[in-house]
């Protein structure tokens, strides 16, 4: 049955409207990043740059504005995000396996704890964590920041992966055990490949969170050579509040890779996350 004409027209119009509003800020960011200053600070802005330039990207990458090269921030961000993904993924999978497969005394307590912890407003903990890290002399250290990100990523990760582990048929593991495989071998050779899709979904999520996180990185990392990309953005913005060309170029460099990556994996990722959220 085909919908009536007016309904199809209305749906398409709404679709176009939603598309324009959602995508416009990113479009405007990229467009501004390529405009020479004369076109940025113009009383009649054009949608697209008339004389596109890479100058703003140049000043971001060579560090002539921020003092430290873009690649230093990029390397720190990549190190923090990858370490967070790998460590939290592994630890969450271990815990999820225990929760889904073993019966032990504090199992229910642990599950309730996971739920309660997800309700805790992390931002309120910036003060005590700042004090803790300062006492342990781990302020200004990427390791401290990674530990904090992993701690925040774990409750959600365990909760998500629990469902994926539980969905793996036990018979497979029992067959492997009969063939003489030890628990570690079963874990890596049987379970890991089968829960890989769930692991991908949680990993993408924790990667994006770590890559974009601002408040904790800004509070803990005070040296520019230790800082991550969102702090570079803040630095451009804080020092030269009106230099919109470099700010938008830096925003583009920070954002585009993640958006491209996210769109590539979104189908799997969104369904996985949403299923976990609604079930939980």
């Amino acid at each position, binding site marked *: 049955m085909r*919908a009536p004409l007016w309904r199809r027209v209305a*749906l*398409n119009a709404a*679709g176009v409207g*939603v598309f324009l509003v*959602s*995508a416009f*800020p*990113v479009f*405007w960011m990229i467009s501004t990043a390529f405009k020479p200053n004369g076109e*940025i600070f113009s009383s009649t*802005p054009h949608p697209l740059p008339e004389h596109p330039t890479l100058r703003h990207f140049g000043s971001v990458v060579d560090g002539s504005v921020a003092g430290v090269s873009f690649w230093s921030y990029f390397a720190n961000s990549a190190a923090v995000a990858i370490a967070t993904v790998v460590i939290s993924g592994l*630890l969450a999978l271990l*815990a999820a*396996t*225990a929760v889904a*497969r*073993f019966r*032990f*005394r504090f199992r229910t307590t642990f599950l309730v*704890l996971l739920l309660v*912890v997800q*309700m*805790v*407003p992390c931002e*309120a*903990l910036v*003060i*005590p*964590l*700042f*004090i803790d890290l300062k006492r342990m002399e781990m302020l200004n250290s990427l390791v401290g920041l990674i530990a904090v990100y*992993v*701690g925040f990523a*774990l409750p959600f990760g*365990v909760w998500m992966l629990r469902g994926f582990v539980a969905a793996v048929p036990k018979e497979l*593991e*029992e067959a*492997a055990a009969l063939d003489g495989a*030890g*628990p570690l071998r*079963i874990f890596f050779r049987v379970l890991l490949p089968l829960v890989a899709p769930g692991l991908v979904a949680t990993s993408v999520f924790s990667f994006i969170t770590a*890559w*974009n996180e*601002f*408040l904790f990185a800004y509070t803990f990392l005070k040296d520019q050579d230790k800082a991550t990309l969102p702090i570079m*953005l803040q630095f451009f*913005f804080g020092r030269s509040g009106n230099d*919109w060309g470099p*700010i*938008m170029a830096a*925003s583009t460099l920070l954002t585009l890779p*993640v*958006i491209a*990556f*996210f769109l590539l994996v*979104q189908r799997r990722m*969104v369904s996985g996350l*949403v299923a976990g959220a*609604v079930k939980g």
Partner: protein
Amino acid sequence: MHDTIEAHGAGATTPAPASPPSTSALRRLGRALAPLPWIGPAVILIGAVVLWPVIEMVRTSLLRISSSGATLGNRGTGNYRDLFDESDLVSVLLRTVVWVVGVVLVTIVVSLALGQLLNARFPGRRIVRWAVIVPWAASVLMTALTWKWMLNYYYGIVNKVLQGAGLIDHPVNWLSHPTQAMMWMMWVAVFVSLPFTSFVILAGLQTIPEDVYEAARVDGAGRARTYFRITLPLLRPSLLVAAIINVINVFNSFPIIYAMTGGGPGSKTDTSTTFMYKLAFSGSGDVGESAAMAVVNFGLILILVLVYLRVVGWRGEAQS
């Protein structure tokens, strides 16, 4: 599989069998400890990064802390008295409630419409879904900065468009007026909350079987009636999750306000989260008072969530 692992765990912790009672005690201990290598690291990290700081936050709110982070002794309720003496506190708290309730309410209403749109069949649906998802992957800080640039007094595109459409006569310096700045920041907060919320609702819509609608059509129910009597009640679990997660996220949202107005002028656009941050890290920072603010924030979130659950549960009873 769990037999293998328990046997393994018990074997590892049980030495050669001695007298029968001690063996069984040890074996029981071994069995209790068997899951430890699996969940231990996760428990330790969650404890160190989330649970312990919560305790320490409460403790810090009762201490006198120097600006270098050293503890200078007990302060009783002094930090709370300082906090409640802040002349801006009442307006900041009221603004926080307006911010949270307003942003979450608008987000949910818009997401209900968006979910319906994304669930409908029309050409280009996939592209619209992609566009809606973009602000989810993008950093909130970057989105806030881009909006700040678009709202620029002299060169911002928003003023040009509104002037071109004849909606305003002169360019407006949006972010320097507290009320207008608040409205725009609430819009940005809605903007970044929409992807997650509308996809949770979309997932909820997809779980509603087609024959329910079929039955409604046979009974002669109109579109509006079908939506309010069937779709909306069946969406309740999704809405519950979306609303609670949004309340927590929006309450704690820091980068939007930090980037767009810095809470200024004065504290006229601060919410209690940015206010808490300023108490600790700006000027003569007072970590103790800031911790007191964090404790109050905790309480506020708890109250908001409980009130919400109460309202929802109460309505549910009235309906059944």
